[in-house]
């Protein structure tokens, strides 16, 4: 089981947002996709989760194409996308938000079990179950969004800038949690981040995007030590 992206090209209106991009993420790996604002990272993720159409190229998960499939069908087949910013429904309670990803699941016992696991992982959610999600802090909302995705027992997790707008301490927490999730929940993760350092530190491999094209694909460690990457994205 791996995510294979081949010669993927995506247009955003008149702009070529992603240009002939190829990479592979093997099972159980955490891949960080880094690059500056406007590099096309979010567009890439939205296409992989079915929210956006691609122009040409392939993307397969487990050998099956995931392009042109409806988002809800992809979600039901084990691919969960936690989008950036507004990923919880503010008007619904924490409990209701968590329940969303389990509504269609037939195995209600497992839904209950994994919900308990999620609450274990993010105790603060357990304390705020009946609160409206809009009243949560930024970090808590991110935990809720990730927790909700996990309830579906996904195999592939697409995370879009989970650190956005969060305090450094919380970011550290979130990144560590994400890292631990890979083994705990048997996941493959694609982590899109502007926080290149934090992402590469927990990742196995790194994919560097610039203006829609891949400029580097390598192990995360190598990229961390690469002077060009350091100068461009790591600030030192």
């Amino acid at each position, binding site marked *: 089981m791996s995510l294979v992206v081949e010669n993927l090209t995506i247009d955003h209106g008149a702009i070529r947002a992603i240009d002939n991009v190829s990479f592979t993420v093997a099972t159980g790996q955490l891949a960080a996709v880094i690059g500056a604002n406007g590099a096309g990272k979010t567009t890439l993720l939205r296409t992989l989760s079915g929210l956006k159409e691609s122009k040409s190229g392939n993307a397969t998960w487990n050998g099956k194409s995931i392009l042109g499939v409806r988002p*809800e069908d992809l979600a039901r087949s084990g691919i969960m996308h936690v989008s950036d910013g507004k990923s919880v429904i503010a008007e*619904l309670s924490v409990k209701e938000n968590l329940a*969303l990803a389990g509504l*269609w699941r037939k195995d209600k016992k497992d839904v209950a079990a994994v919900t308990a696991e999620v609450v274990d992982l993010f105790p603060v959610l357990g304390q705020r179950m009946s609160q409206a999600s809009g009243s949560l802090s930024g970090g808590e909302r991110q935990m809720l969004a990730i927790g909700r995705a996990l309830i*579906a027992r996904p195999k592939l997790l697409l995370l879009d800038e989970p650190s956005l707008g969060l305090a450094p301490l919380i970011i550290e927490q979130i990144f560590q949690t994400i890292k631990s999730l890979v083994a705990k929940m048997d996941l493959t993760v694609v982590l899109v981040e502007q926080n290149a350092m934090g992402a590469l530190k927990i990742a196995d491999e790194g994919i560097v995007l610039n203006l829609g094209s891949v400029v580097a694909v390598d192990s995360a460690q190598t990229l961390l030590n690469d002077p060009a990457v350091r100068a461009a994205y790591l600030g030192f």
Partner: protein
Amino acid sequence: MLQFITAILTSLSAGAIYALMSTALVLVWRSTRVINFAQAGQAVLTTYIGYEITIRTGSYWYGLIAAILSGALIGAIIDRFFMRPIFKRIKSGPIVMIAPVVATLGLLGIIQAIIGFIWGLNYQTLAAPVSTDGYKIANTVIAFSPYNLMVLLSVTITMVLLTVLFQKTNIGLALRASAYSPEIAKLSGIKVDAVRTLGWAIAGAASGLAGMLYIPNSYLYPNGMDVLLVFGFIAAVIGGLDSLFGAVAGAMILGFAINFVATYISYKLVFPTAFVILILVLLVKPGGLFSSSKGRKD
């Protein structure tokens, strides 16, 4: 004093029917971001169906069930086979703004024309299942009848059922999630398209009930529910288009306002009053009096 109590009771009864219509409009608005002007056509069409069943079976109640069920079916069909293709087709240009509105208007005209084809344009009457003579209190007959009571009870039961559906069931959660954020709902695996069709079905059933409750006090003809569409719309605007509670509250406010004006001032001022209230709300608090979010979501 008696006049006052009567006015309150009749306001409740009138407001109850407006509440059904405003609920239908709010349901469709929340799921599709469209004001469904064709709701008037759906409501009157299902009342014609109810009328036919009532005549053939001799029972108003069978007609009522038929109206509600056909309302749900027709609502679902309209969303699935009319609205969805239109949205797919109209994606860009200045026409995007007016296209859905014009589409529901065109649909209204078509439904009313089809009714004319099948049943003709004459006024029919639908008999109420219970007495429409006012209750007698201390030797005076008041303007509130067993029929009004039946209306009040049916709508109350319906609202309770809908509230339970939306707040306590999985389907209700799916409906609400899809209305608040279709994208997050999709990413959670909810089949948003099917859920939206369900929303239209519920709206259709509500307007079907509204028609069967309203028409016995009025006449059955293709344009017979136009006035109720207007009142339902105004009620929905007053309450804010984004909550069921607002729809009911707005309907009650409107019902009370125009009933009291009719009772104490003049029945000729009913429409002007409704209109003035509409303009006031739209100018002062366009998001509605009970809306939780800021301003209107266009």
